[in-house]
C-alpha cells in the first residue's frame, strides 16, 4: 500500500522549510517536495540583513536556507525532488501527482512562493540570458563598463540599480510613473549615484538584437511617443534588468483554491484555504508584507493548524 503522509508540503523556501521543521518536530509523517533549489527567490539574494537571529556578517540567502534545510532534516521531514503537475485536494486523502511519483497526504501545505514578474514586452523570452536578466547578483559582471537599463520603481528595482551602478558605465531606471515608490533611504542612494539616470513615465514595449540584446523600444505613457534605444556600436549589446514585483506560483492551484484577483491564495489569518486540510504559507498568499520572516511565520502557523486538523479527523 502506498504511504499516506500526515503532511505534504509543496515548496522548500522559508515557508515550506519552516512548516517542515514544525511538522517534523510534532512527529507528523512529513514530506517536503521541491522542484528546483531550496530557497526559491531567497536562494539568489546576495545579502540578508533583516532576518532576526541570522549571522550578522556574511549571511546570504543560500547560507540561511542551507541551515533551514538541515534543521527540517534533523526533525525527520522527508524530502523529494519532483514537479507536481496535478493536485486532487478535495478528498480526505489528498493526492499529489508528480513527474516521478504520486504522493498521498491527509493534509497539505502549499508554499510554492512567487517569482519575478516578466517585463511584458515583445521578444522578452528570446533575450533572457542574452541581455535581459532578473538577477543582478548573477549577471552584473557581464555588464562591467557597459550600459544597463533597469525597469521598475520599487525597493528592489532601485536597490539593484545602485548595485549595478558599481559595475556598469551607466544605469538608467525606466519607470512608468514620474516618481519612485522605493523607500526614501533607497531613493536617496540612487539620486546620489552619479551614473544613475531616469526615464520617467515610460515602459518597455519591445526588445531586439542579433543574438544579444541591442535595441529597446520605450513608450512614453503620457504622450504615446516611441523611442528606440540602441546599444553603443563599440559595446555591441546592453543590459535590461527587470524588477517589477512578484507573480504568485499558483497556476496549479487555480481550479481548486480560492485566489484573489492577482492570483494569490486567499487564506484566513491561520493559513486555512477554502478546502479543509489544505493550508497556504508564504509569498503565494494574499498578505501585506512578503519577507523571509513572514514566510517562516506562515509556515509555523500552517503546520500547527495542520496538526490540529489531523487530531480532529
Amino acid at each position: 500500500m502506498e504511504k499516506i503522509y500526515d503532511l505534504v508540503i509543496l515548496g522548500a523556501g522559508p515557508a515550506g522549510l519552516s512548516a517542515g521543521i514544525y511538522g517534523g518536530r510534532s512527529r507528523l509523517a512529513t514530506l517536503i517536495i521541491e522542484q528546483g533549489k531550496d530557497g526559491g527567490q531567497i536562494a539568489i539574494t546576495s545579502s540578508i540583513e533583516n532576518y532576526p537571529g541570522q549571522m550578522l556578517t556574511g549571511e546570504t540567502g543560500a547560507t540561511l536556507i542551507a541551515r533551514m534545510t538541515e534543521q527540517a532534516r534533523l526533525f525527520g521531514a522527508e524530502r523529494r525532488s519532483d514537479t507536481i503537475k496535478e493536485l486532487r485536494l478535495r478528498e480526505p486523502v489528498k493526492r499529489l501527482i508528480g513527474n516521478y511519483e504520486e504522493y498521498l497526504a491527509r493534509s497539505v501545505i502549499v508554499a510554492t512562493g512567487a517569482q519575478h514578474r516578466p517585463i511584458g514586452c515583445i521578444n522578452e523570452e528570446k533575450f533572457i540570458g542574452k541581455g535581459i536578466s532578473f538577477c543582478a547578483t548573477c549577471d552584473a559582471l557581464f555588464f562591467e563598463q557597459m550600459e544597463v537599463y533597469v525597469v521598475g520603481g520599487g525597493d528592489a528595482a532601485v536597490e539593484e540599480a545602485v548595485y549595478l551602478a558599481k559595475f556598469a558605465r551607466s544605469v538608467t531606471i525606466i519607470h512608468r510613473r514620474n516618481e519612485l515608490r522605493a523607500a526614501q533611504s533607497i531613493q536617496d542612494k540612487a539620486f546620489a549615484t552619479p551614473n544613475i539616470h531616469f526615464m520617467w513615465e515610460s515602459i518597455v514595449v519591445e526588445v531586439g538584437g542579433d543574438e544579444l540584446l541591442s535595441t529597446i523600444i520605450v513608450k512614453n505613457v503620457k504622450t504615446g511617443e516611441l523611442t528606440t534605444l540602441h546599444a553603443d556600436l563599440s559595446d555591441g549589446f546592453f543590459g535590461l534588468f527587470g524588477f517589477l514585483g512578484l507573480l504568485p506560483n499558483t497556476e496549479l492551484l487555480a481550479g481548486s483554491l480560492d485566489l484573489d484577483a492577482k492570483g494569490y491564495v486567499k487564506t484566513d489569518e491561520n493559513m486555512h484555504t477554502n478546502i479543509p486540510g489544505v493550508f497556504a504559507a508564504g509569498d503565494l498568499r494574499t498578505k501585506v508584507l512578503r519577507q523571509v520572516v513572514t514566510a517562516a511565520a506562515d509556515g509555523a502557523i500552517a503546520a500547527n493548524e495542520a496538526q490540529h486538523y489531523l487530531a480532529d479527523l
Partner: protein
Amino acid sequence: MLEVDKLTFEAEVLKAPHKIVVDFYGDGCVACEALMPKLHALAEQYGSANLKFCALNTSKARRLAISQKILGLPVIAVYENGRIIDSCAKDEATAEKVEAMIKKYI
C-alpha cells in the same frame, strides 16, 4: 570535474573530439553555487569518453562567455564540434531539467 579557463577553453571544449557539458558559473552567482553539487554528481554518474564535463568561471573569462553569447547565469550547455547543441539557462537550469538534458546525450 575539469576546470577550464580562457586559455584552455578552445582546446578542451571547442576542439574536443567528444561532446562536453560546460557549466558556466560566476562569482557571486548563488543559483550557480546551488546547482554545482548536482552537476558534480551528474558528471560522476554520466561522464564517459563520449561525454565529458567541465566548468568555466565566467567572472574570470567575461569576454569568452560573451563570445559564446552568454550574458546570464547559470548556463549548462552541451557542446559538440565547437558549437552549443543544447542548453539550460537561468530559471530552466534546475537539477531535474539539466539531468533530463544530459540523459539525451549519454
